[in-house]
């Protein structure tokens, strides 16, 4: 038999049995990745709105560099999914791979760094900080040695705790991309005033928490249908925006902006006034045609992670008897979502520079951030943020059409917000089944509503929403912490991917990803290592940037204390759970203890 004939022969014979399916479409994988790396809800809200802070950086190259870094992470995650398809994500991957010595090293290093930073943030003496660091290293290493400890701490913080901070951030996005623009174009001035204030912000947060909880109660099957329509509607809105921007000149936009500034907000010559304010605050510089690969460009990269960090969010491979084709399909979906978004982001910034004017665009964004985050006391020229969808809609002189465009853009938020608590509830369920959390955390009502898990994410979400609204000066600047904590979780999985072929060869060798090599090295290890380096560098930049560019590092003691509290709570929950279960005669070590086969 020739090799060619062999290739035509079936690789396996299947019988009729439960669970054998034909897989899923690559488009589905792309759609979920694309909505997770959300160009509008995440990108325009934050990452693409901060270029004014680093005027010497290259906007275009920062997006592309970030996408390259995230490509490595996408490969590592696709490999983990292919190697442990139904394991359930970061929690189980880290629990199963980061044990023993690697777990102790990761836990020890993490514990040492975290405790030293927290001790320093509290202003403790250097000697005391080093003592605390040693204690943190011991606790971290102990958690790493305990099967499941490091996996719980990294996953509970990234998939549960920090999503309580994401709740008011999701709400803030909804507020300034949908509620306030809609109120403005509909002429509801009291609405603009109310929702721009603290009470309005808190109200939107509560609304968001109720909606996202309702979507969890609805179930993913129902929500998935909504998501599909949101994707199509959102893409249509984006296409309209791009067309309007492409066919309009900057002069026509200036005229439109000034017209609406006067009509909606009673502000004359709003365009130039915005530029003047941005110039005064030194956030209106930069050149979109700058393509220099220098330090300023790399300084933008951690900002870009706010939206490009999530191509693999929510992806789990189901089914059995699967092969390398699934690795490729998953990876294609991830990279499709990632690079389609990166490409659209580049198109967007180029169009923004062409039509809105780069100086105005940066000034409009940064002056709003400066005001909203309490960096400066000055109110912005117009009382709402210049959401790009709204700005583009101004090019049509009809408030009804403007409202329709704003509503259509709301699909980007609605199609993505349902995953907020869904991710948390899955993590809480997994921890409850592992007996780390009480039984009631995994209970569901007769209608299938996971009320226990929902309560565990809703209650802290309400608390943080209140703080976000009424302690804005402290909590708004913590926005990037929401990304940092998830990046730390992904860093743990990247390390797990790196060591998988060497530490758990039985799992790796039997997986379809084992066939992929680079220079004789396992692809998953190479990608995992590059992802580890990329995420590690980004986390280092966030925390140690000397100029406090990101607002969350060592220059912001509140941020370090907040992060420290999250990780401390996770560690305490795990340690208490172990002791509590031991008193009940339940040995949590047994959960992951491998039974000898012979």
């Amino acid at each position, binding site marked *: 038999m020739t090799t060619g*004939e*062999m290739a035509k*022969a*079936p*690789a396996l*014979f*299947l*019988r009729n*049995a*439960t*669970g*054998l*399916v*034909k*897989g*899923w*479409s690559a488009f*589905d*994988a792309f*759609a*979920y990745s694309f909505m997770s790396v959300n160009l509008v809800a995440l990108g325009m809200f934050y990452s693409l709105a901060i270029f004014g802070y680093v005027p010497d950086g290259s906007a275009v190259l920062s997006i592309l560099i970030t996408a390259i870094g995230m490509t490595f992470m996408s490969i590592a995650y696709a490999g983990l999914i292919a190697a442990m398809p*139904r*394991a359930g994500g970061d929690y189980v991957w880290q629990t*199963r791979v980061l044990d023993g010595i690697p777990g102790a090293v990761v836990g020890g290093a993490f514990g040492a760094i975290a405790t030293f930073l927290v001790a320093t943030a509290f202003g403790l003496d250097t000697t005391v900080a080093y003592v605390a660091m040693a204690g943190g290293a011991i606790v971290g290493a102990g958690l790493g040695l305990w099967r499941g400890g490091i996996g719980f701490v990294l996953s509970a913080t990234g998939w549960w705790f920090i999503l309580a901070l994401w709740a008011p951030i999701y709400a803030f996005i909804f507020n300034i991309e949908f509620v306030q623009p809609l109120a403005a174009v509909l002429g509801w001035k009291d609405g603009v005033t109310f929702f721009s204030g603290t009470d309005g912000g808190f109200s939107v947060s509560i609304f968001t928490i109720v909606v996202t909880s309702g979507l969890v109660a609805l*179930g*993913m*099957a129902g929500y*998935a249908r909504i998501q599909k329509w949101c994707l199509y509607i959102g893409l249509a809105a984006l296409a309209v925006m791009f067309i309007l921007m492409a066919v309009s000149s900057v002069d026509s936009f200036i005229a439109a902006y000034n017209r609406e500034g006067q009509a909606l907000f009673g502000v004359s010559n709003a365009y130039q006034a915005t530029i003047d304010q941005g110039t005064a605050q030194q956030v209106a510089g930069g050149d979109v045609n700058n393509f220099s690969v220098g330090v300023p460009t790399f300084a933008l990269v951690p900002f870009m992670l706010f939206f490009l960090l999530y191509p693999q969010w929510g992806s789990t491979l*189901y*089914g*059995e*008897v*699967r*092969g*390398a084709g699934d690795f490729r399909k998953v990876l294609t*979906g991830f990279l499709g979502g990632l690079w389609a978004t990166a490409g659209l982001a580049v198109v967007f910034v180029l169009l923004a520079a062409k039509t809105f004017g780069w100086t105005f665009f940066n000034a409009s964004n940064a002056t709003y951030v400066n005001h909203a985050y309490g960096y400066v006391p000055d109110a912005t020229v117009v009382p709402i943020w210049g959401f790009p969808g709204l700005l583009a809609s101004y090019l049509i002189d009809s408030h009804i059409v403007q409202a329709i465009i704003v509503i259509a853009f709301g699909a980007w938020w609605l199609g993505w917000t349902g995953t907020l608590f869904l991710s948390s509830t899955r993590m809480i*369920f997994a921890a409850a*089944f*592992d*007996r780390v959390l009480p*039984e009631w955390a995994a209970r*569901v009502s*007769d*209608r*299938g509503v996971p009320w226990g898990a929902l309560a565990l994410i809703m209650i802290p979400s309400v608390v943080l929403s209140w703080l976000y609204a009424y302690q804005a000066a402290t909590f708004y600047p913590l926005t990037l912490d929401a990304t940092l904590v998830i990046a730390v979780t992904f860093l743990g999985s990247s390390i797990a991917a790196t060591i998988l072929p060497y530490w758990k060869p*039985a*799992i790796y060798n*039997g997986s*379809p990803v084992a*066939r992929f090599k680079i220079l004789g090295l396992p692809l998953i290890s190479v990608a995992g290592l590059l992802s580890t380096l990329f995420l590690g560098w980004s986390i280092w930049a966030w925390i140690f940037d000397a100029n406090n560019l990101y607002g969350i590092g060592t220059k912001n003691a509140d941020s370090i204390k907040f992060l420290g509290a999250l990780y401390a709570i996770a560690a305490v929950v795990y340690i208490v759970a172990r002791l509590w279960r031991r008193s*009940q*005669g*339940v040995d949590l070590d*047994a*959960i*992951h*203890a491998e*039974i000898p*086969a*012979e």
Partner: protein
Amino acid sequence: MRVFFATDIHGSEVCWRKFLNAGAFHKADVLIMGGDMTGKAMVPITGSNGTWRVTLRDQETVLNGEDEVAAMEKRIADRGYYPIRLTPDEMTAWQADPSLVDTRFKAEMLAQVERWMALADERLAGKGTRCIVSPANDDIFEIDPIIAAAKLVELGESNNIELDGLALVSTGYANPTPWNTFRELPEPELRQRIDGLVKDVPDKRRAIFNFHAPPFGSNLDNAPKIGADMRYVSGGQALIPVGSHAIREAILDYGPVLSLHGHIHEGRGAVKLGKTLSVNPGSIYEDGVLQAAIVDLDVKKAEVKRYLLING
């Protein structure tokens, strides 16, 4: 009494061996296998004259000599697939005549169950650990007598088994699936079957239900939704309950101390239905990991003292 319950190992050699060792490892008094023991796929190893080729999970490997072939066969078997050596001529014949595939499939399943029962008799001898195996919807009927013939393994299906004062009631029949498998019944008939099995249990609270299908809407039965073309809907993100209404109602009506389920590999979990603790340990047999539930029972009070879902 400590019960060790695993299910849905689908032909995985390593999972069966772990199962047999679980009694000693986890100090269990009773081992219960919830069914779907037999594999779903055969992997052909094709060649002749000492050189063989095999494609496992899209990874083609050339094997030289008996040692390499044997190592590959073990790897395939540990994943739950049946390794089949075929000459090129046999492969051609198999492709032309599906009945040859069906015949070999059946032979492989029966041979494996016979081998497993012999291994059980060998490993459990003198241990004092009881072992109950109850085939389920993916298992052909012909394996039942093989299990029943084993010395140290008891056949669960339709046989009420006394366990230290509790009654183990088993059936591997499930509500209908899109795959039209061997042991499926419409919901009303499934309920009749359960009622028939339970009627001989004097104190229903002192029963353990070992019903393969999980109760509907219990979260133990959440599976990715599939369309008419047998592809996942919404990228597998859309989970829907696919469990049995009859089993749910039976649990709520009779209130046994414990109910054991499988069938839905993604439905790992434990829930309280009325007074009953219902568990589905899930299955990731292809990884060679034996997921299981360890349940400690107070047989005097007919209560669950503690439980743990493990990845062994």
